[in-house]
């Protein structure tokens, strides 16, 4: 069964001059269990919007998104929140760690909204990403690479079926970016989670077997369609 199925997905925004600009127009996009896909997209190509639509953070103008057969449009906001908490892991470009919380608490907090806090598993995940000795450090006390690893552990804390990664290595240097990417891919493989990664970094894209250009699936890209 497809973990992710997107059909006729459309999303636009009203620009400051009052025109409605379409950002996302994806006729069809499917991901299967444990599949790993890298989407190539430049800045402003609508890749973050696409991921936010899949995560249920944004509501589409039309079309459908199904996560493991569950159609998001048929759910209430609380229902989409539940799907996001239980079935989707999200690694943000800026990591989005909560600054007042320790690494362990960041991971546990993600669990609390999903399947429930499991300190043993949270510690095991942090140990898996190499932060055994940094569990009680706050984000500011961690290097950028370490923060990224906390974000990866948090994204996988609820045994998600789908992991979304938005430029996950964008804030890392070349050496750390490669290591971080391998970590994400390995952990996703271990957990049998599908990985949808978007980036414009060629070095990252070259590491994937399955790479798609966002422009190939998003008809709204270049030039944007200006609706009447």
């Amino acid at each position: 069964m497809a973990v992710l199925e997107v059909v006729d997905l459309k999303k636009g925004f009203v620009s400051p001059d009052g025109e409605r600009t379409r950002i996302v127009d994806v006729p069809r996009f499917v991901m299967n269990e444990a599949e790993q896909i890298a989407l190539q997209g430049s800045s402003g190509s609508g890749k973050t919007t696409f991921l936010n639509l899949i995560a249920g953070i944004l509501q589409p103008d039309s079309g459908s998104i199904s996560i493991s057969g569950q159609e998001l449009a048929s759910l209430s906001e609380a229902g989409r929140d539940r799907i996001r908490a239980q079935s989707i892991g999200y690694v943000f470009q800026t990591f989005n760690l909560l600054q007042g919380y320790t690494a362990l608490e960041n991971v546990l907090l993600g669990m609390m909204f999903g399947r429930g806090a499991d300190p043993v598993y949270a510690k095991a995940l942090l140990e898996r990403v190499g932060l055994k000795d940094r569990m009680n450090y706050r984000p500011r006390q961690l290097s950028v690479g370490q923060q990224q690893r906390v974000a990866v552990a948090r994204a996988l804390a609820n045994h998600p079926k789908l992991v979304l990664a938005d430029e996950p290595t964008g804030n890392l240097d070349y050496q750390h970016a490669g290591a971080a990417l391998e970590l994400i891919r390995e952990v996703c493989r271990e957990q049998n989670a599908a990985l949808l990664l978007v980036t414009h970094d060629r070095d990252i894209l070259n590491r994937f077997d399955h790479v798609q250009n966002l422009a190939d699936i998003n008809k709204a890209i270049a030039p944007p369609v200006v609706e009447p």
Partner: protein
Amino acid sequence: MISGIFLIVRRSLRQHALSTCVTLFAVALASGLVMSVFSIQRQTNEAFTGGELGFDAVLGARGSQLQLVLNTVFHLETSPGNIPWGMYQALKSDRRIALAIPYATGDNYMGFRVVGTTSDLFEQFEYRTGKKFEVENGGRFFDSSRREAVIGSFAAARTGVKPGDVINPYHGLAYNEDSKHAEEYTVVGILKPSNTPSDRVVFIPIEGIFRMGGHVLRGSGQNYLPEAGVAIADEHKEVSAVMLKFKNPKTGFDLDMTINKQGKVATLAYPIGRVMADLFDKLGWISRVLELVAYLVVAVASAAILASIYNTINERRREFAILRALGARRATVFSAIVSEAAAIAALGSMLGFVVYAVILGAASVIVRAQTGVVLDVWSLHPALYITPIGMTVVGALAGVLPAYKAYATDVATNLTPAS
């Protein structure tokens, strides 16, 4: 989810430690003040109107019942005048009366009342059921035939008088070092603390008051100056009041009829609690004002909770967006903010018990020094549990507005760090 809310609340309180502490202090003051106002109100009310006083009624000169009670029971007011010794004797021999004890007032020692009385006060009177006056180790009650004094515990502590010391009473109820009586009294005992107004009194034999230099007895209607070595005829004697305990409450109503409504010579203050209750009713507006001030402070503390949390919401928008992106529902974010406000109110209320203890401790010292009545800091009053609960509810309500602001946070636009 509850554990998530609990974690969010704990972290937020710690992250905003300064504003949390200031708000906690405001809430502590508010709840401590409310608890103190209600507790002191009830305790003073009970102590003066409903508490066990040991006596049922006071007989004194024609005049104000309130003045009579304040003068004899609480040792606060001046005496409305004297009544003949014969009235005391008549009541003492009345079968309906369990106990009649004469009081003669009008002198002081270093500002503490000197009361002339009989040894019945120590031998028969129970200031609380089953509790009679006792003297500290090494002391004894006075011998009515000697110039001896027994001093209350508070008066002894304040004046430093101890058994064996010789004291000279001063004329009048206010201490004036120029009006010292020549008569000397040997202190033979210090009363153990009774937590009653008697702790502030110096007791001497009533004969001593009769014979105090400058005292003129008018029991017979004529002026009579006692002479040393010459017995005073009962007809000349007079007392400030007779403290009464009845065998049956009905006696009080009978005496009220014969003394107050049909007689013209004396006044019977009965029941003592009702007389004091009338006073408290007249002064009830003071209590209302104090309550109003306390409620206003609660309102200010609630506003402080609202302001302190509301001001942090803007800077926390990204935090809420991240929580939502992790799967937290809007209701969870809303609950977290309301819980945070309630937690501040609840913690502040707990600290309020410290404020309450300090206020009641200070009030207790003042009330005891002025009246001899002791307030109990640990006395259980409904305000002690209603206030923390009420304050927590009010605090939670104060959190609703900032919670709504957090509830309405847009996830997508706030996920990106502000540049």
